[in-house]
């Protein structure tokens, strides 16, 4: 009998629910039963309510079981799971799961399928095709392809990536840099983490393409300290890629040099802002810089620097391998391509759903997410991280694209959705938004540094009904100052969750509809 391949994910979210213990137990118990198995630690498919999700390779394709606990292992063996045997936890062929099948996975095409650090796995599943295509092109053809694809920054600001790449390419300097912002601090997001832990060569490939297009020879990936496994995996991947000639002084024999280094952040949310991140990489306090000059001209160590989010770089290999038109075919209007949406918070089937722009919140939360984990009604969904708007039911049918969301004062951001059920207290969440801003503000500009603390106080007074009507006016005025007068999105967007909570859920602040009519 040949060796059976059993897959147990090594993604942090799988480890956090016992994947290591399950993997060890499967290997030990199968061996004890005389079953010849090879346990492969793959990445996660992103169906997190099913983790740890064990997959077995059979003649019928990969059969899934989940969520598997150590206690389930003996029964699974009894049920013959190594040949796809029936069991209450059996999910059938994984590729046929509706949650996966309906998705449009371009960036996450390899998620859950490959061993993250296996170079042969990466290559067999389409890896390096984008880099090879780029090496056969002129630098201006590369950034033109990115520009033509319509790819916009996936970190949240949605700035056209091709314009950044072109600006750096056309800047004159001895040293240019490519920096990846992997300071994924938004609650409700984990797509960057999944890419780095699960498909690190894709990020390396995307950054190398950006380096060749822009003329940069050195790159940094700035990863949050809350993601220690991601840092470790990327460091290993960089070593492997370098040995295999995908990085280094002579990338794939092209004569072009690109060296890459993973750097660990240190727990500052504002360092996800690009200029604060540069300061941090330079070894300083993560204090925001005033713009202009833009980092594309005066960036890391004062040199022209391409800065993009993990998902932006991760999209580049597909665009180069399959063409700008292929990528642009996905999406709506000026929001082209796909976005890996992240379903989080109080949700039954939380996970990663990569789809073209244009899907609605209602489809994501109910068709994919299955409603709340608690079984109660959904009250609000915060989209785009802690600086994103709380959307009430009346806004759940708006297509998720940058422009449609901007029209209602909301943001798509990094694609994170945090679902709250009917027990949520939106006044408390608004207060938390201000509290978080006070905690994380870099302190450089007054509206953010002081406004956030005053914001907490004002919301406390509103909740305590201390001159409520006047305090509401004051809060709106304060939010206006923060939005108009802050240097970066930290202070500038903290009012988004605050005002959306106040506008859509006034009853949570003790404001009756009569008060609103009077105001």
């Amino acid at each position, binding site marked *: 009998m040949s060796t059976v391949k059993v897959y147990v994910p090594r993604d942090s*979210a799988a480890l956090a629910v016992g994947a290591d213990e399950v993997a060890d137990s499967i290997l030990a118990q199968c061996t004890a039963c005389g079953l010849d198995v090879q346990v492969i630690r793959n990445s996660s498919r992103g169906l997190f309510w099913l983790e740890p999700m064990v997959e077995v390779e059979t003649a019928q394709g990969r059969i899934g079981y989940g969520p598997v606990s150590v206690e389930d292992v003996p029964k699974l063996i009894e049920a013959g799971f190594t040949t796809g045997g029936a069991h209450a936890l059996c999910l059938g062929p994984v590729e046929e799961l509706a949650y996966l099948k309906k998705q449009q996975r371009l960036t996450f095409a390899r998620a859950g399928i490959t061993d993250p650090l296996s170079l042969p796995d990466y290559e067999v599943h389409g890896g390096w095709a984008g880099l090879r295509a780029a090496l056969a092109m002129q630098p201006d053809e590369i950034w033109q392809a990115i520009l033509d694809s319509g790819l916009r920054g996936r970190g949240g600001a949605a700035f056209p990536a091709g314009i950044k790449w072109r600006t750096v390419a056309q800047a004159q300097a001895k040293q240019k840099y490519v920096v990846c912002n992997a300071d994924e601090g938004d609650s*409700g*997001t984990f797509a960057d983490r999944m890419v780095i832990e699960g498909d690190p060569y894709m990020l390396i490939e995307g950054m190398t393409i950006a380096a060749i297009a822009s003329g940069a020879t050195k790159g940094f990936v700035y990863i949050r300290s*809350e993601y220690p496994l991601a840092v470790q995996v990327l460091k290993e991947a960089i070593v492997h890629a370098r040995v295999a000639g995908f990085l280094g002084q002579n990338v794939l024999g092209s004569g072009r040099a690109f060296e890459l280094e993973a750097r660990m952040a240190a*727990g*500052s949310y504002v360092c996800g802002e690009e200029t604060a991140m540069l300061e941090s990489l330079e070894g300083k*306090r993560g204090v925001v810089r005033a713009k202009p000059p833009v980092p594309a001209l005066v960036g890391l160590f004062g040199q022209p620097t391409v800065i993009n989010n993990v998902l932006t770089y991760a999209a580049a290999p597909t665009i180069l391998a399959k063409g700008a038109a292929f990528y642009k075919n996905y999406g709506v209007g000026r929001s082209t391509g796909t976005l890996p949406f992240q379903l*989080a918070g109080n949700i039954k089937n939380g996970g990663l759903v990569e789809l073209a722009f244009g899907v609605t919140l209602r489809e994501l939360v109910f068709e994919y997410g299955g409603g709340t984990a608690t079984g109660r009604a959904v009250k609000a969904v915060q989209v785009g991280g*802690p600086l994103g708007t709380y959307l009430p039911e009346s806004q759940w049918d708006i297509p998720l694209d940058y422009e449609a969301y901007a029209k209602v004062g909301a943001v798509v951001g990094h694609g994170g959705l945090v679902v709250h059920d009917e027990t949520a207290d939106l006044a408390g969440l608004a207060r938390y938004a201000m509290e978080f801003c006070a905690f994380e503000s870099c302190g450089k500009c007054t509206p953010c540094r002081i406004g956030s603390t005053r914001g907490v106080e004002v919301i406390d007074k509103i909740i305590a009904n201390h001159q409520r009507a006047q305090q509401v006016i004051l809060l709106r005025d304060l939010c206006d100052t923060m939005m108009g007068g802050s240097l970066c999105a930290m202070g500038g967007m903290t009012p988004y969750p605050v005002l959306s909570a106040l506008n859509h859920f006034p009853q949570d602040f003790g404001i009756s509809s009569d008060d609103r009519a009077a105001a």
Partner: protein
Amino acid sequence: MSSTTASLIKAPAEIAATVARVLDERAQLDGALLPILHGVQDELGYIPASSVGTIAQALNLSRAEVHGVITYYHHFRGEPAGKCVVQVCRAESCRAMGGEELLAHARQKLGCHGEHGMSDDGAFSVEPVYCLGLCASSPALMVGEKLHARMSPAKLDKVLEAQA
């Protein structure tokens, strides 16, 4: 300070040797300060005040600049933490799933109060953390270096019992 918490403080010779070794490895990096501070904290558990001058001198910075960086970043600590650090997520996704109750439970159970509270015997510190990236499996926390998701106060008690 009890004898246990005092024992978390490293001896001057160990501090000096560690800092020298980390500087030797990392001082030549571009933007070396954060990698150096990580190196020192990873080995010693905190960044002792007595190391600030040495680090500053090696990088041609002022002590104030190094001190400013250490105190700016939430990850870096100037004092030792408890032997086992429990970090409970306070961000929105975990809040939607009872994260605040979990934090309160951890603090109460382990006798750790305040923002970076350590228990009196120095065995535990309970700290808030702002997102571990496990938001589809909230609430989440980290005990030492081990992540735990889909937590509840009862599950946390089990994890802590295994820890003891």
